[in-house]
């Protein structure tokens, strides 16, 4: 449906790079990229659902491998969409349902006996797959039917504990891979396909309920992606909010870039694991796919700035960009930020390449792995550098760096 738009924007973007873009056009590009990104997240979530259905209908090495591949294929579009999280309350308020981590996975299914028990979070070893009824805060819960509503309404963050993650990509990931018991050594989770075999041959018990949980939690993920894709589609609430106030949209875009770059990606997702040398502090910890998620986060930030997104099917969405606006205000600021964004993508591509060559992110976190530490810190440094350039871009556009999701009328604050 965006074909005409794509054609028009692609032309202008390539032929006239220094044409001053106006905020309304830039906001429209942003919305188009948002719609395409979350649209792809929905398409790939549905493909994941098809593969999961295939696994459950006919468990085998092959169908399990197909489902795992579909999960990995679903991550790039979603993680590129994370650049839309900060600055857009609709995305930020929804994110915890679909991407929460780390999780006390013993809430969902069996775990290794050596896995730390948490006696004051009895839910951390609840194993709802094995227990159709249980007590939660003194109330008996009937979990005979494992439904999307049960997962999102009762199990997710049960007892107010954020570690009680029951839904989202990482819950699906746990059910497809199982625990990664290799610490900072090589190897990911190794759940056997027989965990989904119905009747004789079922391993680790409760294969029917495990399959039911996986079906329900995958359906929930599809529902959540459909919701977000609709928010960014023409007429959606997220799209309208941006289009109706293009100047605030610019702040939203740069806030999203800056907050994801520095606090979230460089800090919580990369530096923390290194600081603690803790393989639990990696986002895709069951599948060892973390290097891809980190890489596509950085690509997502670059997409927003350059006004360009490559869809899962290879189609390119592009249009008047923030980059062009900044360039018309100060070409040197634009050149520096453009180059910084590329450097971050390159630094994360090194981690991605290492991962694809069999050196997963969790292995780089091992104490004394100075080579891993160097590679990781180069990515952190690149992200930190690009954030300073994002701040300069805000300054040349006359924007203030503050959470614009609260009305920031200076008259509302005592100075």
């Amino acid at each position, binding site marked *: 449906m965006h074909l005409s738009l794509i054609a028009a924007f692609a032309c202008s973007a390539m032929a006239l790079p220094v044409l001053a873009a106006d905020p309304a056009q830039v906001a429209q590009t942003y919305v188009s990229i948002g719609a395409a990104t979350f649209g792809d997240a929905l398409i790939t979530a549905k493909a994941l659902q098809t593969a999961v259905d295939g696994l459950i209908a006919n468990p085998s090495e092959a169908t399990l491998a197909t489902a795992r591949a579909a999960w990995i294929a679903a991550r790039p579009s979603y993680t590129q969409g994370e650049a839309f999280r900060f600055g857009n309350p609709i995305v930020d308020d929804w994110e915890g349902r679909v991407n929460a981590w780390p999780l006390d996975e013993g809430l969902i299914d069996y775990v290794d006996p050596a896995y730390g028990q*948490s006696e004051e979070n009895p839910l951390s070893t609840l194993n709802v797959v094995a227990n159709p009824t249980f007590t939660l805060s*003194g109330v008996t819960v009937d979990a005979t039917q494992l439904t999307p509503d049960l997962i999102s309404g009762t199990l997710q963050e049960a007892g107010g*504990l954020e570690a009680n993650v029951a839904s989202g990509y990482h819950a699906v990931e746990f059910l497809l891979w199982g625990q990664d018991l290799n610490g900072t050594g090589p190897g990911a989770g190794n759940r056997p396909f027989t965990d989904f075999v119905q009747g004789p041959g079922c391993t680790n018990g409760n294969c029917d309920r495990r399959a039911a949980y996986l079906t329900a939690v995958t359906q929930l993920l599809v529902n959540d992606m459909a919701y977000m894709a609709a928010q960014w589609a023409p007429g959606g609430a997220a799209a309208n909010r941006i289009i109706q106030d293009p100047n605030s949209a610019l702040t939203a875009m740069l806030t999203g870039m800056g907050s994801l770059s520095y*606090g979230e990606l460089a800090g*919580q997702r990369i530096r923390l694991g290194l600081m603690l*040398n803790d393989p639990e502090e990696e986002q895709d910890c069951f599948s060892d796919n973390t290097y891809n998620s980190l890489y596509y986060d950085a690509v997502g930030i670059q997409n927003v700035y350059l006004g360009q997104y490559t869809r899962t099917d290879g189609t390119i969405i592009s249009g008047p960009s923030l980059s062009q606006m900044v360039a018309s205000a100060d070409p040197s600021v634009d050149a520096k930020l453009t180059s910084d964004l590329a450097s971050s993508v390159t630094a994360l591509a090194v981690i991605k390449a290492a991962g694809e060559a069999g050196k997963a992110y969790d292995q780089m976190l091992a*104490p004394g792995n100075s080579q891993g530490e160097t590679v990781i810190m180069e990515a952190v440094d690149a992200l930190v550098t690009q954030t300073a350039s994002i701040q300069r871009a805000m300054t040349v556009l006359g924007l203030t*760096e503050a959470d614009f999701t*609260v009305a920031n009328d200076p008259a509302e*604050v005592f100075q």
Partner: protein
Amino acid sequence: MTALRVLLTLLWAAGPSLADSPLTVVPRTAQETARIIAVTTLTRDFTKAEAFEAKPAGAATVRQRPGTDAFSQYSANMPFERQMNFNLGNALFTKSWVAAPASTLASDGLGPLFNARACQDCHLKDGRGHVPAPGETAVSLFLRLSVPGGDAPAGIKDWIATIPEPVYGGQLQNFSTPDVSAEGRMALTYTEQPVQMNGETASLRVPQYAVMKAGYAALSPAVMISPRIAPQMIGLGLLEAIAPDDILARQDPDDTDGDGISGRASIVPSAQMGQPMLGRFGLKAGSATIMDQSAAAFSGDMGLSTTLHSDPWGDCTAAQTACHAAPNGQETGLRDGLEVDRESLDLVTFYARNLAVPERRNPGDPTVLQGKRVFYDLGCTGCHTPKYVTDRLQDQPEQSFQLIWPYTDLLLHDMGPGLADHRPEGRATGQEWKTPPLWGIGLTSQVSGHTEFLHDGRARNLLEAILWHGGEAQAQRDAVAALPKPDRAALIAYLESL
């Protein structure tokens, strides 16, 4: 209330002063002082919301997020480069610690005695803890223990000397690592007590606490027990940034102005600052700084050592020999030789300092304004001080020179025998409690899924919390009970809007 500032200045002029802020303060100009006095003067106009009232944390105020994350946002005015520290602090705050020895050297050292494995296990969603459901083990509510005796710290007047319970220490830890006995379980029962008001009735649940399954020797017959529930975490950095003089000036220990409200400052030794400081944090204001409070919680609640409490066994007493002998998580040359290194304590402190206060929902609603008038007319503001302007700070832009609306004087008040724990703490008597801040209180249900208030969660809603007030607030409590029903409902609507 009368200002004692001059007297205090004279008393403390020689050395470290109670007027010292724990933060790096830019001195206030005379012009600023005048503007602050003008903007913090209490309003008498209840026909509309006041200027700046919708943003209780000034420029640090965040939007009201739906759902349970409303208290988990960072200060809205935080620059990008500081968001990394907030997120790292958040990760440490939610991190589950494990017993030593463990493969993850950086995450071990829990216990041997502990109440929780992670900060967030008590500070659920950065909000309030809750009382245990029947049959549930308490986590976010625990018992402090002490017996009379010992010495007062140097330089603090009117200190009521107590020492930790000789065997069980300063609090009852109901969990322990393998090979060490837990200390026991808190037993809690309630008795309902009806209360008559003008036009309606209520019922208060009166709690009774005891220690069950004591894991060591019998508790001392002289033991004093104080139940404590985890308070909400928002706005702490702004409370830390209130000028000490602005708090001390509201003291009136002898009630010289005759309003029935005294107000005494808690003064405590600060491990961080190495001198007696004004206490601000904790239910009896037993901690002077956020770092003091955080380090005490790492030690007492989780058994983790920091620069301020370097014993890896936390609250184990000399009598608990197995606890002392158990492995700890300190390794020479790693993490400053501590279980929680300096950097991690700094990050958790930064996180706690910047958990932001959400904006007011409807400060201009007529019912809310009617309730506000009741709150002001009855004198609730005598302790629940509406507003301050924080100090101008050199390296904390988020907290610097903000007009804030916390509704607390941070002073100790006698709340009567009904709320008394009969366990003195520092200068606070067994009947005194610190005025808790009220900002964000209306979001408790949204964040925590309950509305349990007061120091041990005994009040099941805001009205019950008011009805529990006694002592210095007896007159206000009685006045609320005597209000016509619509005024009482408006008062609650006002509190819900905070």
